[in-house]
């Protein structure tokens, strides 16, 4: 592969799945043997892949990848923590960018849905409350880049990460922008 000049330090990358299906994470893993390159050049911070619970606990995180839209209050809190700690925030996949399939519920009343599903609706304060509408993340925080797709192709992930590691503005190559 083209050797870009090695970073002075390893970049920290965090990932999270909000109202998503982890399909985007699976697609990231689909970069296959390029994962070896990746772990040479980055450290993973909070991520389902590391089981670290808090993003950028000791330091800022260079890159945050957000899968999924916002369907409840906890999603909002997590997203805000990501935005606060990550230098570059990337909306990854259809759900983060548009709300995606979870947003199909947006024309229904979420309170009515809870009523009809649970009968007696759980009211434990530990449980996050769902939002009236599933929201794309750009309506709640500023995003720096977006990687569309359901999921984005593995090659698109790889290109994005390479661009960001090299300090370039990521521009997906033709064919790597897909919405399904």
């Amino acid at each position, binding site marked *: 592969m083209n050797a870009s000049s090695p970073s002075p330090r390893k970049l920290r990358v965090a990932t999270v799945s909000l109202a998503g299906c982890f399909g985007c994470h699976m697609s990231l893993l689909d970069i296959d043997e390029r994962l070896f390159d990746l772990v040479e050049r980055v450290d993973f911070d909070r991520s389902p892949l590391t089981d670290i619970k808090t993003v950028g606990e000791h330091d800022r995180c260079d890159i945050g990848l957000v899968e999924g839209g916002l369907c409840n209050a906890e999603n909002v809190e997590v997203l805000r923590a990501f935005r606060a700690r990550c230098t570059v925030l990337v909306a990854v996949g259809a759900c983060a960018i548009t709300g995606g399939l979870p947003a199909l519920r947006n024309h229904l009343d979420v309170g009515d849905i*809870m009523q009809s599903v649970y009968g007696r609706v759980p009211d434990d304060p530990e449980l996050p*409350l769902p939002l009236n*509408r599933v929201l794309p993340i750009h309506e709640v925080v500023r995003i720096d880049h977006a990687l569309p797709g359901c999921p984005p192709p593995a090659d698109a992930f790889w290109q994005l990460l390479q661009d960001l590691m090299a300090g370039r503005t990521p521009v997906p190559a033709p064919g790597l922008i897909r919405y399904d």
Partner: protein
Amino acid sequence: MVDAATVAGGVDAVLGRWQRDPHALVQILRETQALTHWLPRPLLAHIAAALGLTLAHVEGVAGFYRFFHTRPVGRTRVLFSDNITDRMLGSETLLAQLCARLGVAPGEVDAQGRFSVDRCSCTGLCDQGPALLVNHHPVVTRLDAARVDALADLLLADTPVEQWPAAWFDVIDGVQRADVLLSGLAADTPALPAVLAQSPQALLDEVATSGLRGRGGAGFPTARKWQACRDAAGDLRVVVCNADEGEPGTFKDRVLLASHADAVFDGMTVAARAVGAQQGFLYLRGEYRFLLPQLEQVLARRRAQGLLGRDVGGVAGFGFDIAIHLGAGAYVCGEESALIESLEGKRGTPRIRPPFPVQAGYLGRPTVVNNVETFCAVAHIARRGGAWWAGIGTTQSTGTKIHSVSGDCARPGLYEYPLGTPIAQILADCGARDVQAVQVGGPSGACVPASEAGRAIAFEDVPSAGAFMVFDRTRDLFEVARHFARFFAHESCGLCTPCRVGTELVVRRLDKLAHARGAGSASAFDIDRLHDLDTVLHSGTHCGLGASACNPLRDTMRHFGAAYAQRATAPQFQPDVDLDAELSSARRATGRSDAGAHLHTDTPA
């Protein structure tokens, strides 16, 4: 209430009066609604069947015009004029007062179906506002708390409008400075028959010599438009007077039609002679419905005088008559091709051009559409000569222009000046003090800051369609721009993407800056978005409405950026949505009110 059989009989009488002509659909809907208050779907189906149209087409037309109601309304419908000048005179407080007295919200009808209250776009009574329309027909001017209180009593008592105090319906001309047009035709000038005795070419030549340009806003040379119509292929030609004076803040045409209708009709007749037209229309905006009876009287008198009909003015073979069509509350119909669509009984969607109306206009016939003031000027030019008119004003902007002055000034009303008159002079004459800005030409015109009051109103400097709204230093020009943004979003015809979606997105972004929708505080990010939307709307909409929809935004951001900056103080991006409100449904379902059941919308620092 009228019973169903009477309604059916009335509707059939309306259909018969218009000879079941599908091109009269807008007129038929308007007259039908005058009987039925609103237009239920079965009634639309009846009309569609009678006219050989589809129900969907009729529904589409009925749903296009703001004055047609496809849902129940009260027997008495009160519409508050909602121009910024009405608001500056306290219309919103008065609307709230009336609604409180009546126990209805704006847009709602009371339980007994007696009345409904709502807002409408500018009614052209800015110099004597706040104003309102009753049943789309009479207007009530100079509203104040006492008048609104009395109005509430009448509505609650279900008193017919005919029994309301007559003084409420007074509409004055309010001419403050008259030049040639507002002074009327001089007695020593030739009568119309003598004018019409000239050859069509001679009439056209006089208008060409005068240098007259259209007074509706675009400023197209009148003679060139007429020549193109005259040269276009076709046996039948049409002259249309555009009296759809919808530009907020403009009311000059109202006065010309009220007090100088003969000059307007003279001008139309001269145009017909010059281009070889047989058919004339006055397209009167629905808000000016109260002028209809007197205008019909003038037309009847002119027919009796031989100034309309066959051999007009004694000119053998020159047949020409004028019919009045009413609009039904749609600003975009002021655009000439949308106006023609409306005349043909359709949705007022601007046409694809070419062909231009002068080539293929009403029913495909070559059609001249000119503004009321333009025709009035023609009446004078045809009598006193093109050179006389060309001697007034500047080289590029000949003649006079009438300004509808309203807002923060001691003497609102009509002011006529030669073109080339500096804004500062008009401001001085109307008694404006401590001026911050003037909206010249209405929201689709230009917002001129006081520092540029030395500029002149002329095609080569600040062109104007006739509105002149003054804002003093107590006014918030951000709110002015937001008001106009709502106006354009409300009036978008919905055809093209940038206007249909873009005007709505502008309103939402400005609402965010105004903190009006519960969204987070605004930041520089929101200002960037506004610049972005402004660029899109200025780069290729279908018609002028979309193209000018961001003019107030652009002008006020440039000249009064502080009004925006003070609303965009958040150091970082803030949410577009009210996050706490987004939890309302789940809070209701769970009955929770603990801290975890709430979200701060603003991002914590």
